[in-house]
């Protein structure tokens, strides 16, 4: 019986996948497996969500129930009944965006994730600029996978951010 949902992530350095995996772990989602896109499906798995961070593997999006992609880089066409969600750092028309990124003198980074009727703040004691976009993509995928906004924000705020040093998937 297929009981595990496969969340396939295509991003070059695996950082989005590692953040998404952290979110899934912190939220106790044990019925999902986050794996790099292109990895073969295991017998017990069902293709559930494709997070096409780079647009690569987007042609395979039709096999998945849900498809998350950057708004500016939509490749492949979502299936007729497929849930299609976008994110963007710049374009407000995407389902999820990031606004108001700011850094305090002591290195704290704060930004708001805005989208689909929700707004919430992420605060990190440290973090590189790339983390914001990676966190946005991972958050969009996590929420599309059914995790509540509150849980996702909580995970992003509390996950040990050596996100820089989180082992890439």
């Amino acid at each position, binding site marked *: 019986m297929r009981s595990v949902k496969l969340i396939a992530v295509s991003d070059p350095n695996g950082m989005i996948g590692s953040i998404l995996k952290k979110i899934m772990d912190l939220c106790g989602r044990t019925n999902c497996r986050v794996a790099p896109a292109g990895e073969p499906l295991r017998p017990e798995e069902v293709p559930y969500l494709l997070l096409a961070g780079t647009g690569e593997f987007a042609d395979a999006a039709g096999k998945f129930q849900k498809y998350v992609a950057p*708004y500016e880089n939509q490749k492949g066409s979502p299936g007729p009944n497929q*849930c*299609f*969600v*976008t994110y963007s750092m710049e374009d*407000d*028309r*995407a*389902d999820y*965006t990031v*606004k*108001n990124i*700011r850094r*305090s003198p002591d290195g*704290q980074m*704060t930004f*708001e994730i*805005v989208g*689909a*009727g*929700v*707004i*919430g*703040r992420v*605060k990190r004691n440290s973090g590189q600029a790339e983390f914001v976009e990676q966190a946005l993509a991972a958050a969009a995928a996590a929420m599309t996978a059914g995790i*509540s*906004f*509150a849980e996702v*924000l*909580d995970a992003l*705020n509390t996950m040990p951010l050596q996100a820089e040093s989180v082992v890439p998937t």
Partner: protein
Amino acid sequence: MNSVWTMAAAVISFGVTGLLGKWMVPFLHKINFGQTIREVGPRWHQKKNGTPTMGGFMFIIGIFVAAAICLPLFYVLSERSSLDMLMRTKLVSGLLMALGFGAIGFFDDYIKVVKKRNLGLNVKQKLILQFLVAGAYLYSLYLAGASTLTMIPLVGSINFGAWYWILSFLGIVGIVNAVNFTDGIDGLNASVTFFVSIFFLLISGVLGVSGIGILSAAAAGGCLGFLIWNFNPAKVFMGDTGSLFLGGMVCALGFGLNMPIIILPLGIIYICEILSVVLQVTYFKATHGKRLFKMSPIHHHFEMCGWSEVKICAVFSLVTIVLGAVVVWCVMVGV
């Protein structure tokens, strides 16, 4: 945020509201919707007797026309992604909530004017209807999957859990009544709510929430259009129809931005108005007849102190502007 549709909403709302006055003010006069001024108000308000009320219909129509044109066109033409169910619910339900409160206000005004009774619905009837409208709005948000997470500018995102619904339920009715109390002198409620809407518009811009930005612009345009007719000396009053509707709009904007808490500083005038009434009544009962203010709500106190209606509008608007600027700053730099 989409500045074209935001601007269009403001212009349409302002234009429709302003133009409607040309027809509606004489019409309200003709059908004798002149408000009976309460005997307990300042005595010089007796001269306002006969000024038509229920002018709130002007900006209700203006805001609805602007929202009905600009919101769907914005969503259709801007190639937005499809997953906006919660935001759409917040916009549509928010407008319907405001309309619901406006309808309660209309019943109240109608009883006052047609039955020639100074006070319309009694407090219990009003509160039951208001709680029903607030409950229906919150239930629609719940069904659309709204989060109990709310953002507090200087604190961050806080998850209130079940308390979110309880506090929201009570808060909406409290705010709507506070806005209602702010209506008592020419131009006060419309000018304060104009600036409140402008600050909601600015915050929507900071966060890129276009739908709420368009609604805020429509509300601001409606208030400004109404001020043409309502500024001292007023040719028409908004009545409870208008003030309760504006209360609903303010709540819809706050909840739409997921930051209902900012209604408190942005609407500090509303809060002071309702608190002045609560304090006055409490003090009066506790001291067996002594008064804390010369009259409540507090705008009447300042009137009794010799302030002109224009000065009260200006000072109350200035307070709103200062607090609004602080709120926008907190949203932008809050850690």
